[in-house]
């Protein structure tokens, strides 16, 4: 009986640590994803706006991007 209870307790403890490490995993992955998303947004947002703008009608020319006229 005592051994069954202790086995059950150990089982719960193992499951508990497994759940906690799953939570940690999710947190770590989401942190990593947020960091990558921040870097992508930081470098890529303005090029994205320029690409969307250059493809809108009427299509402007490439030289208009650089010349001040």
């Amino acid at each position, binding site marked *: 009986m005592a051994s069954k209870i202790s086995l059950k307790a150990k089982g719960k403890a193992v499951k508990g640590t497994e759940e906690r490490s799953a939570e940690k995993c999710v947190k770590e992955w989401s942190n990593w994803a947020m960091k990558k998303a921040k870097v992508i947004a930081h470098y890529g947002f303005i090029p*994205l706006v320029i690409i969307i703008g*250059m493809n809108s009608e009427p299509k402007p020319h490439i030289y208009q991007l650089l010349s001040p006229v």
Partner: protein
Amino acid sequence: MGSSASLAAAPPPPVAPPPALPAGLAQVLPQKAEEKGNGKGAPEKVDWLDLPCPVPYEELQREALMSLKPELFEGLRFDFMKMLNQRFALSHSVFMGSMEVPSQSSDIIKVPSSHYEFGANFLDPKLMLIGRVLTDGRMNARVKCDLTDNLALKIHAQLTNEPHFSQGMFQFDYKGKDYRSQFQIGNNAFYGANYIQSVSPHLSFGGEIFWIGHQRKSGIGFAARYNTDKMVVTAQVASTGIVGLSYVQKISEKVSLASDFMYNQMSRDVSSTFGYDYILRQCRLRGKIDTNGVVGALLEERLNMGVTLLLSAEVDHVKKDYKFGFGLTVGE
């Protein structure tokens, strides 16, 4: 939408036939209403089921803020906006001057700084993308997307190269027939929601709650706005101990006067501001005077097609801080 349209439009005709009536009654009732109107100038009948949509909650004090908080600056400012397309524009902006560094003591610390800012705007009726990047790597991005007719998503992000200094905020706006609601999610576990409802053609009430996760702080606030064609009165109370009232009176098409009162219970701070806004054909002049001893003015003069001269002045008599700035804006 609601109040700026009402301030700009002419006063409505004294009689308006009710909109949603079956054909038979509609034949009869407008005549009756016209007779009444010609006789005594009776007030128009309020259709309580067809109230106008209120202004968004964050624009509650829009008219007061336009007059009383103009963008005063110190130094030189040069903005150039180049339209490549009806929707797509690039902007270049140069600033040279002193920026104020917030300090704990009452001394003003100014640091001379200069920066060049490059920006790209894409404005579509359904999608708006605005991005600005500075020479020190800071980036400011705004996205506004109309997911459906009534639901809009707004994203505002300020990203820096330094870690832990970036901020981002997502806002979901839902516009109903005579109400608006908004839900916000920000970084540092910030959650907020607000709601505003029209209760009469001129009066609207609203409330907001927010929760900051990291500091376990929450707050609730209430707001009310009464506007007619000629004036706007707003009041805001928040559980952070701030009470704010504002009153804007439109004297004519060109002139409007505004005043604002703010009381902060935590820091026992009271301040009041009075200002004016002249919108003339060639220029726009805004000035304000404060109970903290600050006098400021901003002049935007249109010199030519697309060229605007900016002159800004802010004098703080109490702290002996004098700021003068001039600038030029080229392009729309």
